[in-house]
């Protein structure tokens, strides 16, 4: 696949996007190393006073503290767990991107965040069903980041929602990302990839972000992770958590069966588990459940 983006305005938007702090980049790099432990997370978080403060505040919130003061970052990270710490780092850093309304997709405020969190949770659960097995933390982070490109592409799709929706429903495009490519020469996966590469994210995350709608195009060694994120994305959509008009208007690649063991009952169990974990995590992060 070509890497160039012809549209100069899209190129400029990628260049304008905020850079990642060393701390968040370190946490994302860490998930690429399956041998990492909580001590590694603590080491990285300790280098960032703002994130440390946020994590301590969170650990002392009603949802976690059980009335006992949590005053060390070690205990706070152990209490919250790696997933929550990584999602807080991502949210602190690129939160405005995640939480803003997606005008080009007809997605409301916070929809991208909820969709990404659910995709991350689904990917984490699917990681254990992949052949060969995929690291669960890597799958979670890849799921959290897979739709990064939408935050940028959305502005360029403004005003197209009704037209694209009708065209996809009429079968003029294979799916919504195919319509993005037809209109702008690039889809949100490619944009996300370019942004993540600029941030220097590890190779597996780049592959998952870039190919989550066309997992068969990923390098063979990366496919288990990419298929896990591909399926996690669709599980989030089936659960009613998409990002607007493109939700469910995405093709399932049936080749997933070569890389992930998932039958109908397994799918049902994952939908249920994602819902439960999402509700718990959302309550911890924002003090609210899902309606």
């Amino acid at each position, binding site marked *: 696949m070509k890497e160039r983006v012809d549209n100069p305005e899209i190129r400029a938007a990628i260049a304008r996007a905020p850079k990642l702090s060393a701390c968040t980049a370190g946490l994302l790099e860490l998930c690429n190393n399956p041998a990492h432990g909580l001590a590694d997370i603590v080491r990285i978080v300790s280098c960032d006073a703002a994130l440390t403060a946020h994590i301590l505040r969170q650990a002392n919130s009603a949802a976690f503290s059980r009335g006992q003061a949590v005053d060390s970052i070690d205990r706070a990270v152990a209490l919250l767990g790696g997933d929550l710490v990584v999602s807080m780092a991502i949210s602190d850093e690129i939160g405005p991107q995640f939480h803003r309304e997606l005008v080009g*997709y*007809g*997605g409301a405020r916070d929809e991208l965040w909820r969709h990404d969190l659910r995709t991350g949770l689904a990917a984490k659960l699917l990681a254990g069903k992949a052949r060969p097995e995929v690291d669960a933390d890597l799958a979670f982070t890849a799921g959290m980041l897979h739709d990064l490109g939408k935050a940028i592409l959305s502005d360029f799709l403004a005003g197209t*929602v*009704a037209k*694209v*929706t*009708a065209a996809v*429903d009429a079968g003029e495009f*294979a*799916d919504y990302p195919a319509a993005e490519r037809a209109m702008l020469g690039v889809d949100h996966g490619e944009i996300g990839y370019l942004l993540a590469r600029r941030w220097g994210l590890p190779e597996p995350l780049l592959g998952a972000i870039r190919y989550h709608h066309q997992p068969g195009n990923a390098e063979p060694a990366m496919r288990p992770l990419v298929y896990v994120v591909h399926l996690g994305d*669709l599980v989030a*959509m*089936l*659960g*009613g*958590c*998409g990002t*607007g*008009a493109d*939700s*469910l*208007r*995405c*093709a*399932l690649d*049936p080749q997933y*069966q070569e890389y992930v063991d998932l039958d*109908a*009952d397994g*799918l*049902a*169990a994952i*939908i*249920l588990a994602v*819902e*439960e974990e999402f509700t718990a995590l959302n309550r911890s992060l924002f003090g609210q459940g*899902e*309606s």
Partner: protein
Amino acid sequence: MGDLAASNVPGTALRTFGLGSCVAVVILHPATQTAGMVHVALPHSSVSPAKAVKQPGYFADTGIPALLRLMAGMGCQRCDTGRGMIVKLVGGAKVLDPNSLFDIGKRNILAVRKVLWSFGMGPIAEDVGGSFSRTVTVSLDTGRVNISSPGKEDWQI
């Protein structure tokens, strides 16, 4: 997801947001001006009996009986026989998946129909399937079910 509710207060509406493969089962009882809705996420409670106890609306096999019990408690007499009840179904969408490998929406619809049938009930209107999400609003005064979806004009059944 998995919530169920009923109301007989004139002027109110019941709403559920963002149905993907989930199915909203709407049950109306015109004689008492009562409307109920359950947001079914999965076909069978065998996946998690514990979840079914905590939130019966999550599954077709436990959600529909729970809604009928709720409505019976609100004065909808003999509602479990289907007498005087009107049923509408919305949702059960899927991703673009020609081989139906991931079609949990269709399994939800089939399970819902089967449970309704066991009570001698069948839907008079449906808006199911397709590859788009739906937000459903039931008007108590008219019994109309409004459906909205990003990128489309609203429609009613």
